[in-house]
């Protein structure tokens, strides 16, 4: 076998493949000899960060994963949690950051394809997609190109496979300029009895590869693209881009689910990073068996492929099924009916080895006469016993309470010209916040996503968490994904914990109970002690928050080396949660029903503006501190909300997050088309009361008659409840009154000068046009505002 000379360049082969000298020695120990070139290529992809989790595994081991309803946890393709009635839900978040930086359309498209395969491989029918996207400055041409490509990619793929895209995140922060994040979450529903594992049991069973043929896509994609920091070399990595075919994926979904429902497979594994090598070694290792691969039997798109190319190709839309000889004809019939090429490419063995044979296998599955063995590796050496590195963590020398303009990443170039400085009119600040690209309407994006295919979408992506009904039951699934990148930049522990807090609250405001947590850890180069420290802190924050809230982590994904020559990303612990509504008819939405409802706030503010979008646009102040997170108080709020929903006490509920309470209230007004007349007690720093992003708060509306019941419930739960006023009119009016201060006017000067009174039309204009304005899309038109009766 030859590795193309261009990639070797006088560097020893193993290093060219990203294998360190120490790792090569470890490989030699595992094999008791030196690997040949094919084996080395297989190790290089399996021992990449992406497949082996070699830097993060010891950290992930600390996460809480158990829960009484968890049917499958980390280690499987997706987490699975029981929801009653014999049903379960499968869900997982996964990154496709580096491929999307290189080719945004295909990178995002194949990201969607990959996470969907993780879901239906378990036997679940995918019912929802959520996409969390992070980019640099939206005024830059490069960013705009990436945004357009990524959004089109998600839309092109998700719409075609017929899975609604119902939620996600869109964040712009300069730290993502050179390294955008594309994290995709998928959710599926299955009958628990159809739960299928990615295993290769039963020596003698057949390994059937079905779906697209194997081409040169993504050769080295996993190891080279995901493990090497971007630089000038990226041009030479281009041929490794994977191309997606959503049409093939749709056929793959139907064929796979039919195979599972008819009980035709012993195990099923999708092909993702490291292609066939990963699929055969993982399925064999999980079942303590081996697999002998008949290399010549693998259908190829090109005739002149080298064995290593076939073995590590990341061609999309492929599946590996382990089937008995008796079921083989049925399996092949199903694949043929769905127009999917299928081939028997190997046999399960009892020797614990992955062997690659050319020259064919005989009827018994042994190498045919004259056949040659090209590789022979213990399956465990490639997967469960892959190398682990104990990385060095070091907190930054000076732990910054807040970014000092000079050493913070370049401030965004003028996000909103003519913005008021700190201390100016709160109405103008609110307008600027509603028009901020991170807070404004996402319609520019979401209108490109089919959110209603499947005819189960009760609430799509424009407001808060997505709600999908479970057809044939009274149940609903509520899903959300969140991160707190600006907080994570200042304190990576808090950033991760905040993400869990925000996401749990997004789910709980609907009245749902969280079932479990998935996550995607997006961090920098783990060989850099500061980046590894950020990862360590992030995992600690994630674990601490989930433990305190009693939530199991059922799966996730780790993406490291998110750095470019210019920037390292803000530490980003992306959290995804699925919650269960037992009675979807009792769900609470974020949109008030009309005028005359009481408006109130549940939870108490923790002060601090650091890490907020307010600081992003108004500039940092000398005393800015991070808000704190009280997980016990948060847990109490999470218990209260479903109880209040259960009793039908809430007309609307909306968690306070980006932009603070004022933005949460403004959104409720915009979505209902009805204003509000409110009074807010403020302290010495009114900006913090209005725009601070302290966690664990929910703005609610309710019928005045329900106030006493809600107050009783809140008091019993130990959750502060504060009346703010009532809905009505066509503007948002917030009167600020001093709390514990003698004279309002004396104290108010610190932050805000005036009461807030802004017409909804003005707020709506800012909110509607924020994104197209930021992205320079003059042609885009918002939908005319229409109130639903």
């Amino acid at each position, binding site marked *: 076998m030859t590795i193309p000379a261009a990639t070797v360049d006088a560097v020893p082969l193993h290093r060219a493949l990203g294998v360190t000298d120490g790792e090569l020695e470890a490989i030699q120990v595992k094999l008791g000899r030196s690997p040949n070139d094919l084996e080395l290529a297989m190790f290089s992809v399996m021992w990449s960060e992406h497949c082996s989790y070699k830097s993060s595994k010891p950290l992930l081991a600390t996460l809480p994963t158990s829960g009484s309803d968890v049917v499958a946890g980390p280690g499987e393709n997706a987490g699975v949690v029981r929801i009653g009635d014999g049903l379960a839900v499968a869900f997982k978040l996964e990154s496709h950051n580096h491929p999307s930086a290189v080719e945004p359309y295909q990178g995002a498209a194949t990201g969607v394809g990959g996470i969907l395969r993780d879901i239906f491989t378990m036997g679940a029918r995918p019912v929802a997609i959520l996409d969390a996207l992070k980019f640099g400055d939206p005024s830059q041409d490069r960013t705009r190109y990436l945004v357009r490509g990524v959004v089109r990619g998600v839309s092109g793929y998700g719409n075609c496979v017929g899975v609604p895209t119902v939620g996600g995140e869109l964040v712009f922060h300069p730290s993502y300029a050179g390294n955008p994040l594309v994290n995709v979450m998928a959710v599926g529903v299955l009958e628990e009895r159809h739960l299928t594992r990615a295993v290769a049991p039963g020596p003698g069973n057949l390994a059937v590869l079905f779906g697209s043929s194997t081409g*040169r896509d993504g050769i080295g994609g996993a190891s080279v693209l995901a493990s090497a920091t971007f630089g000038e070399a990226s041009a030479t990595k281009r*041929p490794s881009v994977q191309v997606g075919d959503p049409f093939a994926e749709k056929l793959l979904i139907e064929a796979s689910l039919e195979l599972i429902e008819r009980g035709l497979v012993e195990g099923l594994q999708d092909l993702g990073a490291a292609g066939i090598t990963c699929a055969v070694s993982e399925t064999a290792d999980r079942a303590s068996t081996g697999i002998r691969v008949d290399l010549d039997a693998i259908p190829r798109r090109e005739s002149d492929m080298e064995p290593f190319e076939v073995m590590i190709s990341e061609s999309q839309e492929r599946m590996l099924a382990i089937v008995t000889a008796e079921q083989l004809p049925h399996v092949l019939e199903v694949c043929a009916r769905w127009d999917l090429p299928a081939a028997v490419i190997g046999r399960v063995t009892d020797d614990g080895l992955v062997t690659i044979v050319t020259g064919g296998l005989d009827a018994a599955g042994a190498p045919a006469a004259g056949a040659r063995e090209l590789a022979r590796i213990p399956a465990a050496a490639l997967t469960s016993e892959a190398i682990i590195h104990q990385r060095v963590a070091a907190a930054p020398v000076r732990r910054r309470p807040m970014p000092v303009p000079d050493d913070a990443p370049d401030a965004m170039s003028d996000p909103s010209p003519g913005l008021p400085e700190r201390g100016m009119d709160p109405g103008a600040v609110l307008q600027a916040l509603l028009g901020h690209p991170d807070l404004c309407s996402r319609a520019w994006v979401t209108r490109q996503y089919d959110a209603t295919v499947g005819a189960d979408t009760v609430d799509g992506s424009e407001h808060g968490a997505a709600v999908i009904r479970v057809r044939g039951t009274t149940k609903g699934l509520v899903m959300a994904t969140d991160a707190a990148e600006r907080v994570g930049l200042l304190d990576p522990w808090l950033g991760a914990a905040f993400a869990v807090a925000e996401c749990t609250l997004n789910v709980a405001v609907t009245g749902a109970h969280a079932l479990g947590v998935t996550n995607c850890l997006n961090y920098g180069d783990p060989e850099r002690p500061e980046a590894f420290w950020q990862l360590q802190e992030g995992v600690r924050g994630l674990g601490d928050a989930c433990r305190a809230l009693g939530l199991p982590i059922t799966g996730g994904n780790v993406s490291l080396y998110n750095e470019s020559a210019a920037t390292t990303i803000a530490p980003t612990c992306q959290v995804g949660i699925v919650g269960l509504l037992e009675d979807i008819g009792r769900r609470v939405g974020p949109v008030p029903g009309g005028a005359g409802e009481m408006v109130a706030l549940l939870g108490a503010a923790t002060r601090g503006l650091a890490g907020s979008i307010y600081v992003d646009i108004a500039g940092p102040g000398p005393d800015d501190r991070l808000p704190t997170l009280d997980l016990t108080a948060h847990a109490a709020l999470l218990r209260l909300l479903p109880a209040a929903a259960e009793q039908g006490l809430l007309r609307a509920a909306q968690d306070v997050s980006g932009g603070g309470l004022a933005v949460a209230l403004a959104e409720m007004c915009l979505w209902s088309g009805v204003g509000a007349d409110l009074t807010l007690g403020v302290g010495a720093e009114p900006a913090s009361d209005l725009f601070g992003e302290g966690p664990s708060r929910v703005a609610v509306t309710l019928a005045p008659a329900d106030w006493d019941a809600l107050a009783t419930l809140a008091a019993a739960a130990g959750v502060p409840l504060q009346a703010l006023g009532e809905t009505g009119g066509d503007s948002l009016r917030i009167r600020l009154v001093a709390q514990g201060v003698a004279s309002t006017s004396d104290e108010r000067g610190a932050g805000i000068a005036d009461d807030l009174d802004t017409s909804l039309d003005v707020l709506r204009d800012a909110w509607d046009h924020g994104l197209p304005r930021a992205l320079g899309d003059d042609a885009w038109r918002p939908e005319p505002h229409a109130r639903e009766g």
Partner: protein
Amino acid sequence: DGILDPQGRAVETSLPHLGVSAVHGVRVGRRVELDVDATDDAAARVIVERLATELFANPLIEAFEVELLTGAAAGSMA
């Protein structure tokens, strides 16, 4: 040239529905025709090559060819 062409594949699999069996190797690409104001063919070609690389084709996954038509230039991608 080895890059996946799902369109071509889908067309090819449905040709039997049309009773066509003598056709294979279907590749579906884009064709852009444009009028260029330029002093000569070489100058026109420079402009079109630039547009092809920067706008019409994604060099990562597409190849292109530039063809000069009578007094006009067209580029095709596959």
